């Protein structure tokens, strides 16, 4: 958990404090970006843009909510915005998109068959659905915190997550039709 004095120093543009915040949250931000972006390049831009916005807006952070929730919210909004831009860019450059996907694969990193499969499954969800699933089922974020991040009520969050899970369940059954059941 990030200390208050680090946030206060980051507000004063203290580089060390900014780096501490980056180190604390880089994995979360990178995972969200990677799982929602269409390519590794887009994920890098989304992740960098997220932190740039955090450091630009940190002066306005008033400790009314937890810093983690606030940063998660900026991450989600920035990533979805970057996704929209990327989608608009790719509708104009369809060949580039094809080459991008072929080069990067839907799995940005090539380690482990399982991770590749997970990414392939998540790719079949809508970007927002991926974020819900990532927050709840991969990151283990509490429902009320997700509601805070997404600015929705808990009921809506749960409905969205259950829907995304159902989609994943069907995809999983297609991929592993011979999975043994108890």
């Amino acid at each position, binding site marked *: 958990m990030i200390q208050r004095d680090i946030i206060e120093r980051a507000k004063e*543009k203290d580089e060390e404090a*900014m780096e501490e915040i*980056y180190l604390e949250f*880089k*994995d979360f931000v*990178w*995972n969200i970006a*990677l799982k929602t972006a269409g390519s590794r390049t887009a994920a*890098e*831009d989304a*992740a*960098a843009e997220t*932190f*740039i916005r955090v*450091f*630009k807006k940190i002066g306005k952070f008033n400790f009314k909510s937890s810093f983690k929730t606030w940063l998660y919210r900026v991450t989600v909004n920035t990533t979805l915005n970057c996704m929209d831009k990327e989608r608009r860019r790719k509708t104009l450059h369809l060949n580039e998109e094809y080459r991008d996907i072929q080069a990067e694969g839907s799995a*940005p*990193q090539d*380690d*482990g068959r*399982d*991770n590749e*499969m*997970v990414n392939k*499954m*998540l790719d079949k969800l809508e970007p927002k659905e991926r974020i819900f*699933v990532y927050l709840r*089922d*991969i990151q*283990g974020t509490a*429902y009320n915190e997700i509601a805070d991040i997404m600015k929705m009520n808990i009921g809506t969050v*749960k409905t969205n*997550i*259950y829907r995304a*899970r*159902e989609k*994943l*369940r069907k995809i*999983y*059954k297609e991929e592993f039709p011979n*999975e043994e*059941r*108890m």
Partner: protein
Amino acid sequence: MKKECKDFSESKINQYIDGELDDEKRDLLEQHLSQCEYCRSYAEDLKNTLSFISIKHQPEVPRSVWNKIKEATAEKEPFFRLVPGMAFVSAVLILMIIAIYPSYISKKEYSNGISEYIESEISYLHEDTLINEWYLQEEEGEEINIDSYLIEEL
């Protein structure tokens, strides 16, 4: 094919997997799952799916992300922060000068032009009166002196 269950509740099974059901509701559901193949199969599929995707792999964050952040958030030198402002003020002053100067110039030129025009017309008309072959017709025998007539008119 498993027969669908009339008591099937997607929401309840999700809450069960999330550990959100109180003891009483959990016990009831577990009892149902032990007897209903459809709901049990659904619950198992969902558990396996969520276990599979929650593999705790942390892909390495590329260095380029931090480099981009540093570049974007680097503090500019104070002088370079002033330059954009100075450039703006200079541009506004230049535009103002460009806007005002022509009208100042043309006003002067205009008034000079008018004077010159009037002078040239006066001298033209004056020359005209001095042409010897141009006379007014006599009225009642009087010969009118054109020189003095035209100059007086001017």
